[in-house]
């Protein structure tokens, strides 16, 4: 079976997320980060942040909702039963702080097939990008999400 590639370049409607102080603390606690800049407003300000600052990987909290419609788009046509999250990259810019309103847009960067090893069927690679900007138009995070579908 040949992989469908017509969704390459497709963009989906942006989602908006308002960052909250307690949500930042909840995320930081689960990861085990103890730096007070994630919990305490005064500590964050003393460290030069506008407000309580999110750990970098909090970008999945405000970024992932934009990706949902892309993943489930029938034009993309991923077979979820055979899909794994193969790789992930984030690049960070302006820190995300409590009170920020972050808008994230998702786009399909690439869809391609790679020959399976040792005679196994080909794997499909689906690469999406999310770009998150704050209320002042500053980029806070850019994500590259690679999903692999075994035996396209």
């Amino acid at each position, binding site marked *: 079976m040949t992989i469908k590639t017509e969704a390459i370049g497709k963009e989906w409607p942006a989602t908006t997320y308002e960052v909250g102080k307690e949500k930042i603390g909840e995320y930081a606690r689960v990861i085990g980060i103890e730096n007070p800049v994630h919990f305490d407003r005064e500590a964050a300000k003393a460290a030069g942040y506008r407000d309580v600052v999110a750990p970098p990987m909090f970008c999945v909290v405000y970024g992932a909702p934009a990706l949902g419609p892309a993943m489930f788009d029938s034009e993309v046509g991923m077979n979820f039963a055979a899909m794994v999250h193969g790789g*992930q*990259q984030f690049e960070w810019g302006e820190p995300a702080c409590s009170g920020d309103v972050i808008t994230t847009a998702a786009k399909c960067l690439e869809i391609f097939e790679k020959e399976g090893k040792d005679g196994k069927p080909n794997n499909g690679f689906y690469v999406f990008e999310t770009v998150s900007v704050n209320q002042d138009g500053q980029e806070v995070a850019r994500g590259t999400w690679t999903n692999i579908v075994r035996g396209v």
Partner: protein
Amino acid sequence: MAELNAGDQIAGLQVTPDKYLPHRYAGASGDFNPIHIDPEFAKAVGLPNTILHGLYMMGLVARASAEAAGGDPRSLKRLSVEFRGMGAPETEVAVTGTIKAVEDGVATIEVVAAQGESVTIKNAEAEVAL
């Protein structure tokens, strides 16, 4: 400012996520995929049991990388990872790393997350500002 040199090992971290950690991570992140929180569902799709969220383990890699640079969250500029084996709750996750290069105030760290012999994140590369 952290003093980092090429070839140095970072302190890394060891964490044993308890049985309910995937539930708390699901709540914190919004990712409620049942393979992480429902043992019956996980087994029905062929997994041995519920598995850790890959992005949770990437969160641990990000934490260890930022801590290597002194702990300021601003220091982490880029992180790329490959997800490999599945992570299991109630098993220690060890994050280890080596400084690959230090150039223009930015250290590149090669990082791995593993549970015993089972590597869950490989070829991870973090860039941290010093």
